[in-house]
């Protein structure tokens, strides 16, 4: 498990509350006018920012442009940032907002839009109940595994994909996800449930097609 790693690498966790973290230090300096430090401040989050934009826009060029715009917006508003919220969350929320505005402006979602107006239907029933093994996180070292996961995600309807990305990839909490997308907490929960179950089924199917076949699992058991 990556837990220990997570704690060590986490720029937010500040076990000794009396000392500002490097991030708090950078924020304070940028807020006081040391603009040249802004890149150092946001650099650890640049991929998260890009991923959030991509989840909404589904186009790499637009996503990169919006990611940059969002960073500039964050810079312009850095003094409005208050330490009560996590800096990464603040950054992601700005990004989501920028991306949603861009999408509205460009009306690229006519098709998806129709389908999104349907409200959540009844419960989702899992399809695959195969015996389970844990997929080690090391599997992600392999590009084709990452690609398969990305494809499965991309195949989800927009409303499920967005919630899933913000919650499970960007690590926003339920409330923050709801705020960022402008939907209710109940909707976030419903969509998240479906997204997780659908992804699980999609990946179980992928297992049958041999995506993970070269992974060192025991014969006869599959990861889920």
């Amino acid at each position, binding site marked *: 498990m990556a837990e220990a790693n997570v704690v060590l690498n986490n720029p937010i966790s500040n076990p000794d509350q009396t000392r500002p973290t490097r991030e708090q230090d950078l924020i304070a*300096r940028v807020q006081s006018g040391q603009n040249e430090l802004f890149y150092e401040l946001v650099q650890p989050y640049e991929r998260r920012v890009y991923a959030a934009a991509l989840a909404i826009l589904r186009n790499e060029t637009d996503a990169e442009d919006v*990611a940059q715009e969002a960073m500039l917006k964050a810079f312009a508003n850095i003094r409005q940032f208050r330490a009560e919220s996590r800096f990464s969350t603040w950054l992601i929320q700005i990004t989501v907002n920028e991306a949603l505005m861009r999408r509205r402006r460009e009306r690229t979602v006519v098709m998806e839009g129709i389908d999104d107006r349907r409200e959540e239907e009844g419960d989702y029933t899992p399809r695959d109940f195969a015996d389970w093994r844990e997929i080690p996180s090391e599997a992600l070292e392999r590009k084709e595994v990452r690609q398969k996961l990305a494809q499965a995600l991309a195949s989800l309807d927009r409303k499920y994909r967005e919630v899933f990305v913000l919650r499970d990839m960007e690590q926003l909490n339920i409330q923050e996800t709801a705020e960022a997308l402008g939907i209710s907490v109940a909707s976030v929960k419903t969509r998240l449930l479906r997204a997780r179950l659908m992804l*699980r089924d999609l990946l179980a199917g992928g297992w049958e097609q041999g995506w993970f076949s070269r992974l060192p699992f025991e014969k006869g058991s599959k990861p889920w």
Partner: protein
Amino acid sequence: MVGHENRDPSNRESTNRESTNHESAHGEKMNPEMNQENIGCEKIWHEISNFLDGDVDAALRSAMDQHFRTCPRCASVLAGTKNVVRLYGDERMMEAPAGFSKRLEKRLARNARPARSRWLSMEAWLIPVAALALVVGGLHFANSWATQRARRDLMAQAAKNIPPDMVVLVAADSKIFHVAGCSFIHGKQVRSLTAKEALKEGYAPCTRCLRKYLQTAKAGPAGSIVQDDDAHADLEEENNPPGQAANLAAK
């Protein structure tokens, strides 16, 4: 690398929802063959996401735990869903195109320059206040007895009202600490520390950017130094402060 906080799903949120009332009805109907705790597979599938987020009450959680022990299908759903959350939550799933970082850095360097003119126009109204703070804040009269006492009172007051863990900034050229954004330190090299540390190191709070904390002390001696016009006059006499700052302050 960026850490992902709380990657253990069971640690995530613990906003307990009110327990659902249709639990048992649902359970009895749904799952005759593996009904252990009045909870059925469909109920499990309905709540599994909340379960992973720690967003179920204790009774439901233990009923679900019990169910997972005895129902291989639901155990498989749980394990697979955990896999999904863990794998997608991995930092490695966030990839940006080649050169993204460099292009971002360039764009920031181009567009996130210090905007001098904007700064001046936005903050012009602050100049008189800043000048006042310069006088009261004790920059150039720190040696008289009265001022030192005032300063000590001010510090004591500040220590009481300023949150000790608040991150504050100090510049090399004065013994005053500020909060980020204060125009006194704009563009200066600053170092950050907590208010508690700053006070311990002998820094005094800036009366502009930390004003709200100092004003709460109106009744006390420090408050009167900050707010009272007579006090200003006294200080001016004692210190013969020449120059604009004092004149502005006196107005």
